């Protein structure tokens, strides 16, 4: 199987290299053929892996590929850990990536950077696979930063746009703040476990449960809590949790296919994957779990609110992504890791679908993204309409859709959780259901129903995009609708994650939930409670406000202009970061440079020394005037002084 895993990783890498370096020679067709072939191979090998590990129940694969370096008795390796969690992530990543590759043929058809784009998204697939298949923290960090690099390159893909180059820099720097915590977490692991290998560290974790470290004078920190929180800071960066979420809305500057692939389905869920993978550590720190849960709950609710005031179709979905990532994080905090991963998977399908459908709308509208310049598109884009509809009802958790199962499981799990903060988190995710339905269908109704708000010229050219665009939509719509139904049993209440995810008995909310579980149909019936009611209420309110009485939102906006303003500025995070961190750093830099280096060191110390030598020399030059009477005068004075002293 080693060759299968290597092939899955190297296929996309080779595709990226060929398309990147030889794009000119192989042309556009060559570039998309070679990269789609590479990712296609990875997808097939992922299917084989899934079959091997999950369906045939092969033992967990954990082997080294090569030794990166050995220092101080610590071996740093590149290797693969393939278990049921990895197999599922590989499948999700390569499937969505393959869909996005195909879709890109249509979406980027006229772009001069065609080959470059394919090279980047294949490179991304390689990096993401390295991340999920890592068997040690060093390689995890490699994948982590590599996906960050590709994200940086792709957000700024249209490098002529100032907003895009700004957004890419912002995304990289904010992620680096997370990585700052992450790398310290890795250092802490090495210090206390003497290894960076997952298996070794996890095996030793229970023994470290009560270990403490003296970090600050007079206090002792639990080692596991420190490690978990440091690692989670990394996750907060990548998975865009408050307050490190600020980069994700801006990342929408990138072309839509990568918004679907990187900034919705895969990369941003790396943080969720990380915490689930580290469940053997997180289980031993209730403080860390509580921290995770509260951060997730804040993100889930408050980022959802912002979705209601966005006018850009991609930004609505971006804030929805933030909010849904919050849901996953809450699940992790409740020790319902499986539910978090389950939601990660369903979200990957329906959110990729929503983004690609939005992209389809954007192409049809000639790159218009403002939803208030659309309207009534249903009759022009029927396939897109129905695919978007499936994505939307999956997102809001309509009973039977994939999102229903995963989201309801999270809400129920949080309800049962006893971790501090669980009550707040419960209300946040419950209320979030209403908010989700409201912003989703607000966008949906404004775009597809109601009056047409575009000119005649646009209408004449309005038609469904080509098959390469609609085919991935349809292929993504299928799992968006059905996967929850199939997967909930084994994933949440079966033995899918045995030996992979560790949950202590006292935290095991999913086991408690499982006591009532008798099958997906029963789950639907059992779940027909507040969440479903809230979701439908959200849809109804959206319909009333944006289809029936479109005059009301305007009035609300005017009545609460202060609140609306505050929300339009996304609670002021950006303004604060820009003036405090960015401006402050630049100011501090200038201060250190002008006052420290230039004035103090160079001015006073260096040139000061030179000047001092010059001044002394000047003074001494006066003394050595060469006139005899000067010397005679000094001699006489000297003689007089000596006489006064000694005589």
């Amino acid at each position: 199987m080693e060759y299968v895993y290597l092939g899955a990783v190297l296929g996309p890498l080779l595709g990226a290299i060929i398309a990147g370096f030889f794009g000119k020679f192989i042309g556009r067709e060559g570039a998309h053929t070679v990269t789609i072939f590479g990712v296609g191979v990875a997808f097939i090998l992922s299917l084989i892996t899934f079959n091997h590990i999950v369906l045939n129940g092969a033992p967990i694969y954990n082997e080294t590929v090569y030794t990166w370096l050995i220092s101080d008795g610590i071996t740093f390796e590149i290797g693969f850990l393939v278990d049921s969690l990895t197999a599922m992530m590989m499948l999700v990543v390569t499937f969505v990536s393959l869909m996005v590759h195909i879709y890109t043929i249509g979406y980027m058809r006229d772009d001069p950077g065609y080959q470059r784009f394919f090279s980047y998204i294949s490179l991304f697939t390689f990096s993401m696979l390295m991340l999920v298949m890592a068997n040690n923290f060093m390689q995890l960090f490699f994948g982590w930063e590599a996906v960050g690099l590709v994200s940086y390159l792709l957000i700024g893909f249209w490098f002529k746009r100032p907003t895009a180059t700004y957004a890419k820099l912002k995304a990289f720097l904010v992620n680096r703040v997370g990585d700052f915590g992450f790398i310290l977490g890795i250092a802490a692991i090495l210090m206390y476990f003497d290894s960076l290998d997952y298996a070794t560290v996890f095996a030793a974790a229970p023994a470290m449960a009560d270990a403490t470290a003296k970090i600050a004078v007079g206090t002792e920190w639990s080692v596991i809590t420190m490690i978990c929180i440091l690692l989670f800071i990394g996750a907060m960066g990548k998975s865009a949790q408050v307050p490190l979420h600020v980069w994700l809305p801006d990342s929408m500057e990138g072309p839509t296919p990568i918004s679907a692939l990187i900034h919705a389905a895969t990369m941003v869920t790396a943080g969720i994957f990380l915490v689930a993978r580290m469940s053997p550590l997180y289980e031993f720190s209730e403080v860390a779990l509580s921290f995770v849960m509260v951060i997730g709950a804040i993100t889930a609710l408050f980022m959802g609110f912002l979705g209601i005031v966005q006018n850009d179709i991609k930004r609505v979905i971006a804030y929805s992504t933030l909010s849904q990532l919050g849901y996953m994080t809450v699940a992790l905090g409740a020790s319902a890791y499986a539910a978090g991963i389950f939601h990660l998977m369903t979200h990957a399908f329906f959110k990729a679908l929503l983004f690609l459908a939005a992209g389809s709308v954007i192409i049809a509208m000639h790159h218009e993204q403002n939803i208030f310049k659309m309207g009534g598109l249903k009759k022009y884009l029927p396939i897109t309409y129905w695919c978007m509809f499936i994505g939307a009802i999956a997102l809001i958790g309509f009973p039977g859709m994939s999102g229903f199962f995963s989201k309801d499981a999270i809400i129920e799990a949080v309800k049962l959780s006893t971790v501090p903060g669980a009550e707040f988190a419960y209300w946040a995710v419950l209320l979030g259901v209403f908010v989700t339905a409201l912003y989703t269908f607000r966008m949906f109704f404004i775009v597809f129903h109601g009056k047409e708000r575009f000119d005649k010229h646009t209408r004449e050219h309005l038609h469904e995009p080509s098959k390469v665009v609609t085919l991935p939509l349809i292929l993504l719509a299928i799992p968006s609708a059905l996967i929850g139904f199939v997967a909930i049993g084994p994933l949440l209440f079966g033995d899918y994650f045995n030996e992979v995810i560790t949950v202590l008995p006292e935290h095991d909310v999913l086991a408690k939930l499982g006591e009532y579980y008798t099958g997906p149909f029963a789950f639907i019936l059992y779940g027909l409670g507040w969440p479903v009611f809230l979701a439908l209420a959200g849809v109804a309110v959206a319909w009333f406000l944006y289809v029936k009485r479109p005059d009301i939102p305007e009035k609300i906006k005017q009545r609460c202009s202060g609140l609306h303003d505050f929300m339009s500025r996304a609670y002021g995070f950006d303004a604060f970061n820009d003036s405090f961190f960015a401006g402050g750093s630049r100011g501090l830099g200038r201060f250190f440079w002008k006052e420290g280096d230039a004035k103090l060191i160079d001015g006073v110390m260096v040139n000061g020394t030179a000047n001092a030598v010059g001044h002394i020399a000047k003074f001494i030059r006066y003394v050595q005037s060469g006139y005899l009477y000067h010397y005679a005068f000094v001699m006489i004075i000297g003689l007089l002084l000596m006489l006064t002293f000694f005589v």
Partner: protein
Amino acid sequence: MSELPLLSIVIWLPIIGGLLVLAVQKAGDDAVRWLSLGVAILTFLISLPLFSKFDTSIYQMQFVELHSWIPAFNINYNLGVDGISMPFILLTTFITVLTILAGWEVIKKKTAQYMAAFLIMEGLMIGVFCALDGVLFYVFWEAMLIPMFIIIGVWGGENRVYAAIKFFLYTFLGSVLLLIAIIYLFFQTGNFSILDFHDVKLTLTAQILIFLAFLVAFGVKVPMWPVHTWLPDAHVEAPTGGSVVLAAIMLKMGAYGFVRFMLPITPDASSELDWLIISLSLIAIIYIAFVALAQDDMKKLIAYSSISHMGFVTLGFYIVYLIYDRTGSVAGAAMGVEGALVQMVSHGFISGALFLCVGVLYDRMHSRSISAYGGVVNTMPVFAAFFVLFAMANIGLPGTSGFVGEFMIILATFKANFWLALLAATTLILGAAYTLWMVKRVIFGEVANDQVAALKDVNNREFFILGILAICVLWLGVYPAPLVDVMHPSVDHLLQQAVQSKLL
């Protein structure tokens, strides 16, 4: 000795080659260039067996040469390398080939002298890395300043004389103290062998004085805060090749002095004053990173970035005492020292590459100012790809060489102290900020002006130089084991010396 005296050959071949270049300068610039390139490549090839035939299982000096030089004072011509110094000889011979190429069409004035200066400097720098006699070391150390002084002073920018003199005075000031320390040690041991210096017992006061003398001498060269201000000036005025050698090799000599002289000769003083080195290192990492953020001159920015990165090197060397005090063993410290050595090699590639990149732009537009550029990617896509790659290496992206050393040092520093690691790790954010902000302003965006619109992408020669460096940066990032394996016994031995008290 039956074997060839490899070290002598790699020292003297380029020096004699340099003199030869001067002798044949009338044959025309082309002949001069090809001859210089031939000498540089030959030297590089001859230096390769130093790596391939190196015995990685012992810490002792290898390829040793010992001849009496001035018997009256027991001064010997004594050469040898261990796992710490050997990589830098290869780095020097390698970088010199690239600098000769980098000056190919660019240097039109006094080509022969320019090439000769680089070749002679190469030999002298190699001499510094393999001298095992204090006086021999000092001679190479001082002699090396002269070609660099000339390179900055003759082929430099507008303010070259100020920069050259500042460079010379600064380093010379340090060197005087170095000489005093070496002579003091001679009176204690009766000869000038550096390895004998390692074993001599000294009182704490003597150690501290020697330590401080060394610190000034080597600290200026590294350079450490607050004696760093000569470096940005020197870089700005130096021609591209000069900047490359300065950043890639000369800075490493200061750091090399730390491990060859300070840690083994004055271990007790090092232990007493490690807080001083660590504080200065952290100031370099953080304070200098902020200063870099404020620069508009690309060369200055990279120069400040160099200082910040060298702060990591000195930090990696001096965390050993904190770890030793805490755990009673040196386990964990070797990662810091090895990380620092890897960082030195890696920084040689990356800073060299970045200065070459700035040189490519400067040759076309005669400006180093960030604000003069913008949207370079539109007219120079290949160059832009290289620039972004080296920028990413500069901020320590995994998969590039810049990551390896930084990662190892942060891991090791965490063992010493949480807060130190926390401060050091801020480089992840600050380094990315100043480097990528520069990239954003220079490379991306719309074409900023007519000059940028007229830019031509890299030619074959430039592509070749940057391509080779790109391969080195990636290779070392993906597979650093061969480089690190060379160091193990020497670093372990060094750490034993560093924690062994030798008080009188």
